[in-house]
């Protein structure tokens, strides 16, 4: 793709960033909320480890690191870049957008990325506050690099999952409740709330086979070292596989959806 073709999307991302900055209040709230939750997780795991046998590969400091990094990741991953689809459908503006000489999915992606960037910046103050409350392990530079790569793939998988969920609005118009349901379920099944290694037996093995694991679990297990350097290749390959599968699915949904525009009053 030539540079000139990318430029408009870069502008969309910058606009989204600027728009979000004006909602400083919400930004402040999300940082505060995370700090409270980091305090809570420290109390929770400290109490649990004090009175019970620790799981073999996950001592207390690794668990606290896992849970804290998961919360920091959620700052970025909980942004739903594609909720615009729903708003545009409800207001009817999607019809004019489809006429514009841009790729709408890429527009949504760049809008989401711009907002994500702001929240990405917020990781810094949150991290500083977090460090007052908990100690976070830092892995070797190479592991950190692989974690970053895995996180990037996770971001894209998460974006596509949101995209598919929001695109359902083309058929049913009201999808918010459904979306919240998927969000909550995926928080649990992706290892955001607790590591998937804590799930017992068959359930645990099944969860690793689901796409949700590609969102939080894989990067986090790389970070805390449960996925060892020898397994990095496989872990990333599985993530990429889910990325490919979701790209195909999102593409198919989008093609079907744009043929089928029903504008709700507007």
């Amino acid at each position: 793709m030539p540079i000139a073709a990318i430029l408009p999307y870069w502008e969309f991302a910058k606009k989204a960033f600027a728009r979000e900055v004006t909602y400083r209040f919400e930004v402040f709230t999300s940082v505060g909320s995370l700090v409270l939750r980091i305090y809570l997780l420290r109390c929770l795991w400290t109490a649990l480890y004090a009175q019970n046998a620790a799981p073999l590969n996950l001592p207390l400091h690794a668990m606290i690191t896992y849970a804290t990094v998961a919360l920091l990741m959620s700052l970025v991953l909980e942004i739903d870049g594609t909720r615009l689809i729903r708003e545009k459908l409800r207001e009817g503006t999607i019809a004019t957008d489809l006429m514009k000489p841009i790729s709408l999915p890429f527009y949504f992606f760049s809008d989401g990325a711009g907002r994500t960037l702001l929240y990405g910046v917020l990781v810094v103050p949150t991290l500083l506050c977090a460090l007052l409350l908990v100690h976070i392990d830092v892995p070797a530079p190479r592991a950190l690099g692989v974690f970053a790569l895995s996180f990037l793939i996770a971001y894209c998988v998460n974006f596509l999952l949101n995209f598919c969920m929001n695109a359902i609005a083309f058929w049913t118009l009201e999808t918010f409740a459904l979306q919240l349901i998927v969000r909550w379920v995926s928080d649990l099944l992706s290892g955001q709330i607790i590591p998937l290694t804590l799930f017992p037996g068959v359930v645990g093995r099944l969860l690793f086979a689901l796409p949700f694991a590609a969102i939080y679990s894989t990067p986090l297990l790389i970070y805390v070292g449960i996925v060892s350097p020898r397994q990095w290749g496989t872990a990333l390959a599985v993530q990429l596989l889910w990325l490919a599968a979701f790209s195909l699915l999102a593409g198919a949904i989008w093609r079907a959806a744009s043929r089928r525009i029903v504008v709700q009053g507007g």
Partner: protein
Amino acid sequence: MLAAYAQYWRLNLLTLFEYRANSIMWFAFALVYHAVALGALYVTMHQFPSMNGWTFREMLLLYALWMTGHELHNALFFQVVGVPELVREGGFDRFLVRPLDTLFQVLIVPQQLLPDGLLLALVTLGIAMPFSGLRITPLLLFFVALVVAGGALIDLGISLAIATISFWVVRVDTLRWAVMSLEQDFTRYPISIYARGVRVVLAFILPFAFMNYFPATFLLSKQETGLGLNPVVGLLTPAIGVAWSAISYAFWRIGLRHYQGTGS
């Protein structure tokens, strides 16, 4: 006044049937929300069976007691939570010129609110009580009903206080959000896991611990290790609820006298 209240519930239920598919989805959401919270707790406690002496079964009772009190509040008093928005947008001024009690008018704004969350909470409580080893007797049910009512009043006291603060400070979202977070996340666990300052806040300043922790400690005949109190304080929940909401109501009345509106 009673007729107006009956009419309000009739409207609410009519909207339920009008938007049936949407109502079902929201009910499913409530179900999933609580299932995820309890699922995470179950998996955690499967690996770590004791949290400061509390088992999963006992913590289920903790969760159910809080949930039922909170959902009873949401079913009856949820509009109070919306007062800061009404104040900001100027809609609140309407209530002041009508010849009915202001708080009562706030409570009967139709909002498509359905007692589905309460229903879910009652089912959870119905499972949690025998599951946590309580002997179900009429006396127990009577006491649990009082705890739930007291819990709803504690919740009301807090949302009413925040609503009143919004008469002076227009943007109370930060405060409301901090309190909500304390309530939703911190009430899931026995207060002994927190630092002393947080325990004191949860017990005496924003008395969420009286919604579930203290009554559950008493019902399950456990030691109160958080603040070293006699477990009998668990019996105080209804009184605390009444006192807390009465104080808030007095504060609300003072606030109304000072209310100036935002000019919007």
